[in-house]
């Protein structure tokens, strides 16, 4: 009689589910960004950002007035990332909705029910091709190199920038010769009690291969209580979100004609960690800010 490993059945289930989900992932199309739609939704974003998250965005003047720019942010808040919303509002009101602005997001986010409208805000699936296309068209592009690994870090690591040594963004900026503007956010990891990334569990179930998911996070969040996976999102706690855009880093000017990827990575993440430490020092209470 043939013996199955204990993980075989859950893995088969995951692969079947993954097949269904992957089939629903929309093809990224930069043309789906709709400035009128964004503009008409600015008041709603403003209400949520101002009243619920007491958002505060500093340093937008550091972002070049026009032309392509790579905005590199630290990612927080699990699958519900309030800092992205607060920053999108601030960017759109500061530079106007007419300035092309795209955000890279995990495939699962774009295929989640009800979140398809994010594409109208300029959110496209995270891929090298989409990033290249966005920068080639002269747009501002927001990337979160830490991705799901950083967004689901435990709450007690909330004030750490963790890009997991992912350096594709450095090569991207160097290839297109665009400035990098580090965008540092705090507060997102206080919108729930994040307990574990569940990396072992994700590996055990084969989520990495099936869905490019390296984590199966475990958190305590309303309205679910114990929340495993965060696939259905959660109601974020009203944590104060503070975001700071730092002065642009011009790779060729600061690191020579052939920038060393590791050197740039260490420099930018160091700057971001220092800023995050400063923002953390300003906070007095969890959630309240």
């Amino acid at each position, binding site marked *: 009689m043939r013996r199955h490993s204990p993980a075989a059945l859950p893995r088969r289930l995951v692969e079947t589910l993954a097949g269904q989900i992957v089939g629903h992932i929309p093809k990224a199309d930069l043309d789906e960004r709709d400035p009128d739609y964004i503009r*008409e939704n600015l*008041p709603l974003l*403003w209400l949520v*950002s*101002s009243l619920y998250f007491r*958002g505060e*965005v500093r340093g937008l003047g550091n972002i070049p007035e026009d032309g392509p720019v790579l905005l590199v942010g630290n990612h927080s808040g699990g699958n519900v990332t309030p800092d992205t919303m607060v920053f999108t509002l601030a960017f759109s*009101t*500061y530079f*106007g909705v007419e300035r092309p602005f795209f955000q890279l997001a995990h495939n699962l986010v774009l295929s989640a029910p009800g979140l398809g409208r994010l594409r109208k805000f300029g959110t496209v699936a995270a891929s090298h091709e989409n990033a290249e296309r966005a920068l080639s068209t002269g747009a501002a592009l927001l990337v979160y190199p830490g991705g799901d690994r950083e967004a689901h870090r435990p709450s007690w690591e909330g004030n750490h920038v963790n890009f997991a040594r992912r350096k594709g963004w450095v090569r991207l900026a160097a290839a297109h010769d665009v400035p990098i503007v580090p965008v540092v956010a705090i507060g997102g990891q206080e919108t729930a009690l994040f307990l574990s990334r569940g990396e072992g569990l994700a590996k055990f179930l084969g989520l990495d291969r099936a869905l490019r998911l390296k984590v199966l996070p475990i958190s305590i969040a309303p309205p679910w209580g114990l929340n495993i996976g965060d696939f259905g999102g959660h109601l974020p706690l009203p944590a104060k979100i503070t975001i700071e855009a730092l002065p642009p880093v011009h790779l060729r000017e600061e690191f020579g004609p052939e920038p060393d990827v590791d050197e740039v990575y260490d420099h930018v993440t160091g700057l971001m960690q220092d800023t995050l430490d400063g923002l953390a020092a300003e906070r007095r209470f969890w959630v309240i800010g």
Partner: protein
Amino acid sequence: MRLETTVDIAAPPEAVWAFVSDPARVLHFMSGVTRWEVVSDQPTGCGARYRTLMRVGSAEVGSLIEVVEFAENSELAWTSLTGIDQRARWRLRARGLDGEHPHTHVAFRLSYGVAGAGVSGWIAERLSAPQVRQNLRRSLTQLKRQVEQEQLRSDAAGRREQKRTRASFSNL
């Protein structure tokens, strides 16, 4: 949302006009305004364009605006081209010129909103109104203080000049 704030300034309309029509001075008295940048070839007058931002709640909200009415010492109005919809107007009216205390009655009107935003737009306009209104009141208070100080300096300089003229005549 339509807001209006008024103030009486102890100075002639020309003195007030020098402030409200000069884009370089706007940031000195407009409260909450973080940007007032000339983006057209002509800095003032009909057709002049400015990029403006005001901090309201969690965002700096603004528009690219164009001056549509520019009647010296009297009316200055603009409307938005992009960004948040807005129309605004400075109205200056001379008062009490025949009496002992000539002054200028200054009114500033601002209408703003986002067309097509629906219920959320309606709510956001009303919830943002107290902060915008407070910014406008502070702006007019600061305008009054700056214009009146400038007027005092100007009057004092005029008196000194008169004294010098009289002294030079008596020395003849």
